[in-house]
């Protein structure tokens, strides 16, 4: 039994239309059909968090969502974070504060941290740790990741106050 569907999704501003079996996860669709291999698959059962992406602006585990369910949706992956060729504030902060070692969990960490800072621009360290708690770093490099997110929050605040554009 093969239940085929044709879906259209907008990923990082680009429109993709392709066929998929009903059982294809969104993660596999992004990696295989869209060629966007920045989204990593670790456990494939919703524990490791490496596959986290934005589905209509909400961070979800793409290994627990079927591609067919995302038909018509707007998706952002780690590839969509940079501003042109420039890393964004959070990505630069990960680079500067040793926020990645092997890099496997990094896409999930970046997406979760992006959502956290969007919803809570002034997080405490505890809130940052809770915000990334759904992503496992097997290098156990959590201190660097937490520092990176805290520093990115600082940079974003400074940026806002310098440009005076908060209101």
């Amino acid at each position, binding site marked *: *039994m*093969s*239940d085929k*569907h044709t879906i259209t999704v907008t990923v990082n501003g680009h429109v993709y239309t392709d066929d998929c*079996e*009903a*059982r294809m*996860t969104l993660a*596999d669709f992004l990696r295989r059909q869209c060629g966007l291999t920045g989204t990593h698959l670790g*456990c*494939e*059962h*919703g*524990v490791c*968090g490496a596959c*986290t992406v934005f*589905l209509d602006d*909400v*961070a*979800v*585990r793409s*290994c*627990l*969502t*079927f591609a*067919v*369910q995302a038909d018509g949706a707007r998706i952002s992956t780690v590839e969509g974070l940079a501003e042109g060729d420039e890393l964004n504030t959070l990505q630069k902060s990960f680079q500067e504060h040793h926020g990645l070692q092997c890099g496997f969990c990094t896409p999930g960490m970046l997406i*979760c941290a992006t*959502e*956290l800072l969007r919803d809570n621009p002034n997080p405490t360290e505890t809130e940052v740790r*809770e*915000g990334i*708690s*759904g992503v496992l770093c097997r290098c156990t490099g959590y201190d660097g990741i937490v520092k990176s997110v805290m520093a990115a929050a600082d940079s974003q605040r400074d940026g806002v106050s310098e440009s005076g554009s908060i209101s």
Partner: protein
Amino acid sequence: MKPPPFEYRSAHDSAEAVNLLTEYGDDAKILAGGQSLVPLMNFRMARPSVLIDINQTHDMTHIRADDGHLVVGAMTRQRVLERDQTAGSAVPLLPAALAHSGHTTNRNRGTFGGSLAHADPAAELPTVLVALGGELTVQGPSGKRTVPAEDFFLAPLVTSLEYNEILLSARLPRLPQGTGVRVEELARRHGDFAIVSVMAAVHLDSNGRADLVRIAAGGVDSTPIRLHEAEAQLSGTALDDAGIDAAAVAAADSVHPTDDVHGSASYRLEMVRVLVARAIRSAITHQKEGHR
């Protein structure tokens, strides 16, 4: 770690979902947030031949409060419920419990009704429903019926839903203004399923006597368990230390945990005793400090 093949159907409202369930019978499963079902499918522990997706429905996504009750639609995302002020002020035990339920990304997608229908005996939302005496509204081909929470959960992952019934919503009694609530949960890591959880709601009247005591435990029996005997011992009393300790012993006497890799039955019994006492004391403090 890929799910077996299945046929995908999307329902546009609850009635269509019921029709599809009736058409496909036992081979079909409802797909809500997928945070429990999809891992089971990826492990090949569940092999439904048809999935009926209810993410496109709009008649099961609501949070409504009246004078007496809070009604939450089954397709309400857990994260939405956690942050909803109407729900938090009517039933403050809900956001307190949801904070322990997986991680933000699970709650972003996971639904209120999905957790209830999945019926894991260690999950937080079923324990809240049992603690507060909630009622579940289900719809089948011949109409709706209402089931008290204690009759809905039958065994691990087993509910009183018939094969062609769908959970529409659940109704919780509004807690009196100022009710103190507390969730005490023992888990290996934050966000894991509870080894033991205890949920308590306590309200003291103007004379310092408890006019509302609700306690339930999760992870210690085949379903969440309302701790009726402990509630009865504490109701109408001033909740003094000796009374709380005695009620905690009664609580441990009324559950039947089993051994598993996370903890022995005797350890769980001891933890029920400890966590019931701790939850009641913290709930009293919560009321006195006026956190709402």
